[in-house]
């Protein structure tokens, strides 16, 4: 990507106390792209965002915007805006004043300012709240005001730090689709921090998975889900069974492995993979890719149902196989549903067309 909007080049951050916040991050964000930063708590997501916004100076590396080095620019000189996790609305101003704040600093005429603020409020669905005090708004409304305040400045790049984490499930889902819609409508590039993987998967064009101050993988949601580049990514994205296995042989496009003594799963493997028979690998199997089977064959295994939890559309089983435990999702309409009781010994297999990532390590 040469025409990238934002380019982070070897960004490192060591905090005064000596703590390592970021350890040489390289990242590119395209024009109009929606990129999510995903990772466990403390991995450096917020730090990355703060360096892009200019609140924090990196210890090493450069920040380029549209090819121009902006590392040395102060926050107020960057054409980048931020939606803060706690919204950071100015409590002494009402909704409209909050939204006009950025415009008023650009010496925009007040009529024009008002028009823009009104437009922005309509965009986020709060046209009647212009004169409301921000303290009287609910969480979801505040979040939208924060968004409008940032958007009205027409930034080239919008940064969002866990914008939805304070909302409850149904509002959250609603706001996710609102965000996505807005981003498409405006064509602005969004970089959003989240630690919720479902959110990241459903909303982003690309996701950067971070761990301990490094970027583990940057890819589209589907690639990340199907071909995690590391054990960490595999376990972080969705629920995954990570199983040690030994590669046995290749059958056309399908590979056969041996797990434990009696299970020889066969699977499609995405991408190229050349393995020597006998190599030890880790298989990442999704719970929904393990299905109940009726017959007993080499590619099935017998497991005991240790627990069942109801997940609405499906039941999640904890299945004990040998020493290990596997998560298995059974659709509620499965014909075999009546067999599924705690303690039952059942036969399972990998879904024939399942594509499972294989991690060699």
């Amino acid at each position, binding site marked *: 990507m040469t025409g990238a909007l934002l380019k982070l080049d070897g960004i490192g951050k060591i905090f005064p106390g000596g703590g390592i916040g970021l350890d040489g991050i390289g990242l590119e964000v395209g024009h109009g792209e929606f990129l999510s930063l995903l990772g466990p708590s403390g991995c450096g997501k917020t730090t990355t965002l703060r360096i892009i916004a200019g*609140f924090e100076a990196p210890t090493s590396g450069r920040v380029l915007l549209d090819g121009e080095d902006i590392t040395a620019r102060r926050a*107020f000189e960057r054409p980048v805006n931020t939606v803060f*996790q*706690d919204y*950071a609305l*100015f*409590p*002494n101003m009402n909704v409209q004043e909050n939204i006009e704040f950025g415009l008023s*600093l650009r010496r925009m005429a007040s009529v024009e300012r008002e028009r823009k603020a009104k437009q922005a409020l309509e965009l986020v669905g709060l046209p009647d709240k212009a004169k409301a005090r921000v303290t009287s708004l609910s969480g979801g409304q505040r979040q939208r005001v924060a968004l409008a305040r940032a958007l009205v400045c027409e930034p080239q790049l919008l940064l969002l730090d866990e914008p939805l984490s304070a909302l409850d499930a149904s509002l959250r889902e609603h706001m996710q689709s609102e965000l996505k819609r807005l981003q498409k409508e405006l064509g602005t590039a969004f970089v959003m921090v989240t630690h919720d993987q479902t959110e990241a998967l459903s909303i982003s064009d690309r996701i950067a998975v971070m761990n301990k101050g490094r970027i583990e993988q940057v890819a589209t949601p589907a690639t990340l889900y199907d071909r995690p580049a590391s054990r960490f990514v595999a376990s972080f994205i969705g629920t995954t069974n990570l199983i040690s296995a030994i590669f046995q042989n290749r059958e056309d496009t399908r590979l056969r492995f041996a797990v434990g003594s009696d299970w020889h799963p066969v699977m499609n493997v995405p991408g190229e993979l050349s393995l020597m028979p006998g190599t030890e690998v880790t298989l990442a199997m999704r719970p929904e890719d393990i299905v109940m089977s009726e017959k007993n064959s080499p590619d099935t295994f017998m497991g005991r149902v240790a627990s069942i939890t109801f997940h609405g559309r499906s039941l999640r089983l904890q299945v004990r196989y040998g020493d290990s435990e596997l998560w298995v999702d059974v659709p509620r309409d499965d014909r075999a549903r009546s067999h599924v009781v705690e303690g039952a010994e059942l036969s399972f297999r990998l879904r024939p067309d399942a594509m499972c990532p294989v991690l060699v390590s």
Partner: protein
Amino acid sequence: MIPARTVVPDVRSLVFRCLMLLPGAVMGLGLIVFSLGLVVFLAFRHNDGSVLGAGWTWSNFQTILTDPLYAQVALRSVMIAGTATAATVLAAYPVAYCIALRGGRWRSLLLFLVTLPFWTSYLLRVFAWKIVLAYNGVFNSVLVGSGILHAPSLAFLNTPAAVVVTLAHAYAPFAILPIYTALEGLPRSLLEAASDLGARPWTTFRRVVLPASVPGVLTASMVVFIPTLGDYVTPALVGGPRSIMIGSLIQMQFGRANDWPFGAALAVAVMLVVAGGMVLGRKLSVGRQG
């Protein structure tokens, strides 16, 4: 519908509650209300030289309202106390700001440093200021030594300015602490948000920090203004005749003028004005908050 039974506190709880209310009730209803009652009572009495005065009258208040002197002294007191308050709060603000927002790990040390001077006796501090401001004092010596003045100036000591400076010094911690508290609670993200939206540091200060610190500034102003208004020691020691304030006048009615009812009436008048100002101030600040 089943009628509710409220949760009834048992005997132990009742005893506990009474015990918790006891010290406050003794102090509050015993001593404070007694003092307050006495001053209000006296304010409406004739002076006959006795402790409680004689007969009921409005005349004390009539005198206060009709003799222009009292309005004049009150105005002067408000000017001096107001200037002192403004000076104290204005001078203290940047310090509180710096400690709260830029203090970092020096915070507690700085807070300690600004409260330390408090440990010396107030009278000693006033005397120290006399030494600084005196004719042959530190200030004059520096000015003459550096050639700014040819001869020591008399313009420092025994002027209202000296009162203001001394008070600004004496009440520094009272101003710094409330402002510090207000600013310290200011979320960092508000400053960053302003900067993010394109505000330069000064704009951020003016439009975000300053409004947020208003409650702290109000508290600080109150705890500086009220005691300085009633102060009579500082004006007497460093102020000269032009700094005599309402506090001295009240004090003297109880002392050499031997007119307690009039002193009480003056005190009640001042208390009413201050309380009125406070209520007004609160109304205004609440109004601003919505």
